[in-house]
């Protein structure tokens, strides 16, 4: 199976982005990149004239929901949703039922994804049994079975000593420890950011220091253990500054955020809009500014979709009663491109680093995250000039809602390729 992608602008440090180049793919691998590669009889030609080719995005924070929560999502739909959004590799948080906390479940997840998914799905293993924050899991066995990182998903580990020991132990495997940072005592019963909107709407607030305290604790523990710490969500100015401090002081820390944390403020919950109820909550304009600065100066390494779908019944209810969650896979790229690249904050290469190269590096995925010879042919073809409005009802995801619904964005994934196979084409039913 051979293909040539013709006349594409390649988003990569190695090649001139203004030059139209051909990409020759054979057996799922990028074999050659150059001008006017001559096809032979068997090669399929994919015309990408005027379009940009970039490495497929790698999502470091995504809830697969299967097994156990198929009412919210399932592997087939999530892989379709990912393909539409330009994600060729997604990870799975361990918070399924059963929790991915031992090698048998890891093997089960792999067998399921191999059977049903046409994108790469890589599970995380939980660091504590059932993500309860009490007892450490068999991390080594799970790594042997194929997990790429350890994480308790959206559940913070409250116990300082336990987390410290997990960080220390993780060094044996050189595996990233992905932590969700919210101090639960400070979070309390909060449902939105504590501040102007919580006062206006009479909702319990989540303090910004709930995140800052947890981030600082984790950075201190990583500093002293030397472990590889990744902070999954940075949403406050305080957290950005702490991560920056950590990096300046030689701590092995990386950090991620999601598109909604640098585009939407707490104002999005106006009128008790449960679609904007996410955890950590949407913060203030000042925090958005800080997160953008952090993305710009490299403090924040990764942008994830933050895809945490919940059923519509859990959104169409009283605000306090509604679940935290967002349908993020299909809006992440256009929102990120419009808000960060088109506005001139970062360039398209930076965006690719944030959404693909850096995640590949952090997760230790060889041959992914770049369009280069010898790398996996996981890439997307994107039209960066097309303007349109996000329509959540047309999402492939089971969660057909979004706080971005109706937002005017720029940039569309035209085709998605995994291992050289086209798994999604805009306007064509898969």
């Amino acid at each position: 199976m051979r293909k040539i992608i013709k006349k594409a602008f390649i988003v990569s440090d190695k090649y001139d982005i203004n030059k139209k180049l051909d990409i020759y793919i054979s057996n799922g691998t990028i074999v050659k990149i150059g001008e006017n590669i001559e096809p032979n009889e068997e090669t399929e030609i994919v015309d990408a004239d005027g379009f940009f080719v970039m490495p497929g995005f790698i999502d470091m924070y995504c809830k697969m929901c299967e097994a156990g929560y198929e009412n919210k999502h399932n592997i087939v739909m999530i892989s379709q949703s990912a393909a539409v959004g330009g994600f060729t590799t997604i990870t799975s948080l361990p918070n399924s039922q059963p929790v991915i906390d031992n090698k048998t479940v890891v093997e089960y997840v792999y067998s399921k994804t191999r059977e049903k998914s046409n994108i790469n799905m890589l599970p995380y293993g939980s660091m504590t049994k059932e993500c309860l924050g009490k007892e450490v899991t068999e991390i080594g066995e799970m790594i042997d079975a194929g997990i790429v990182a350890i994480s308790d998903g959206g559940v913070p580990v409250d116990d300082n000593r336990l987390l410290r020991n997990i960080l220390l132990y993780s060094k044996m495997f050189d595996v990233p420890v992905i932590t969700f940072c919210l101090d639960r005592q400070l979070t309390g019963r909060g449902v939105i950011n504590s501040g102007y909107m919580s006062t206006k709407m009479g909702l319990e607030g989540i303090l910004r220091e709930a995140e800052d305290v947890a981030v600082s604790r984790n950075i201190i523990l990583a500093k002293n253990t030397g472990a590889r710490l990744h902070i999954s969500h940075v949403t406050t100015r305080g957290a950005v500054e702490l991560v920056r401090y950590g990096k300046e002081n030689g701590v092995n820390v990386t950090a991620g955020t999601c598109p909604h944390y640098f585009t939407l403020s707490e104002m999005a919950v106006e009128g008790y809009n449960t679609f904007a109820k996410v955890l950590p909550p949407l913060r203030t304009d000042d925090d958005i500014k800080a997160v953008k600065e952090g993305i710009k100066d490299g403090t924040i390494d990764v942008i994830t979709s933050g895809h945490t779908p919940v059923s519509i019944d859990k959104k169409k209810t009283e605000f306090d009663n509604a679940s935290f969650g967002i349908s993020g896979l299909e809006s992440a790229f256009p929102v990120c491109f419009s808000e960060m690249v088109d506005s001139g904050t970062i360039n398209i290469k930076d965006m690719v680093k944030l959404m693909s190269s850096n995640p590949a590096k952090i997760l230790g995925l060889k041959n992914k995250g770049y369009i280069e010879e010898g790398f996996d042919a996981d890439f997307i073809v994107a039209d960066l000039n097309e303007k349109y409005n996000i329509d959540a009802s047309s999402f492939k995801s089971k969660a057909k809602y979004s706080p971005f619904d109706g937002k005017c964005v720029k940039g569309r994934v035209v085709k998605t390729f995994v291992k050289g196979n086209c798994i999604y084409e805009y306007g064509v039913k898969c």
Partner: protein
Amino acid sequence: MDFSRKDFISLMDMSEEEILYILETAETMKFVLSQKNKKAPYLQGKSVIILFYEKSTRAKLSYELAAQYLSADIVDITIPKVTDQYETINDMGRTIDQMGGDFIICRHPMSGSAKFLAENVQASVINAGDGINEDPSQSLLDLMTIKNEKGTFKGLKVAIIGDVAHSRVTRSNIWGLIKLGAEVCVVGPPTMIPPKIEKFNVKVFYDIKKGIENADVIMTLRYTSDKNSDSQLITLNEYKSFFRLEENFLEYAKDDVIVMHPGAVNRGIEISSRILEGKRFLLDDQITNGVAVRMALLYLLSMRAGVLK
């Protein structure tokens, strides 16, 4: 004016004109209340469902009497606890719709629930308290009491003392008073003051004497010892010594200051007993006005076309 609302949810989204119009209507209703036979036919053939998810005695009594004085049929549903098998308020509302309910008077422990219900039912919804968000009718009775005493709201200084962060009537009062041109100060320990309240043009004081300086109106709030709330940080004893309104404090306020309370006074905790017995304390007026205001709301909402289906 044309009062065409289907629901009465919050003072946050009401205009000054609408608030004053309700208060004016409430004066007419107060006249009905003062008659020998307290019955007006305006809600004859209409049904009022009192849907309370919290325990209540006073508020419920006030709503029931208001509806009865207007000749409505009343059903009282109290679901004291939101449990795991809890049916969303939306489903409950649809049931009431199908049975022909015209009004739902709803009290619920979650903020925003009355708005959510109103958006999903045909019946008129009156918010009788949603979480810690608003209790707008309770606020209207306070406003009516102030208006009766002071004639106007413009330039009045109103000091509110107590757990402002967790008081829904206070939120409604703040939005209402500011719209009507009054100046609002809140007084309490920092753990009882909601964040960023200054952004709404509300002044914050931690010292009761400074907070009530030159006040025309003092509103004291009920002290509750909710174990899950940050407010419990201050002990009852310390609250009493720092925030109880003593009679001699009133010297700091204007000479004609009035003192109010939302009801169920903890004697000797929020206010000294001497003020409670004094002429400046207007709880009795507030209670009467409460019935009048609720009658006015039912009457005005019944005027919309939707109810006459």
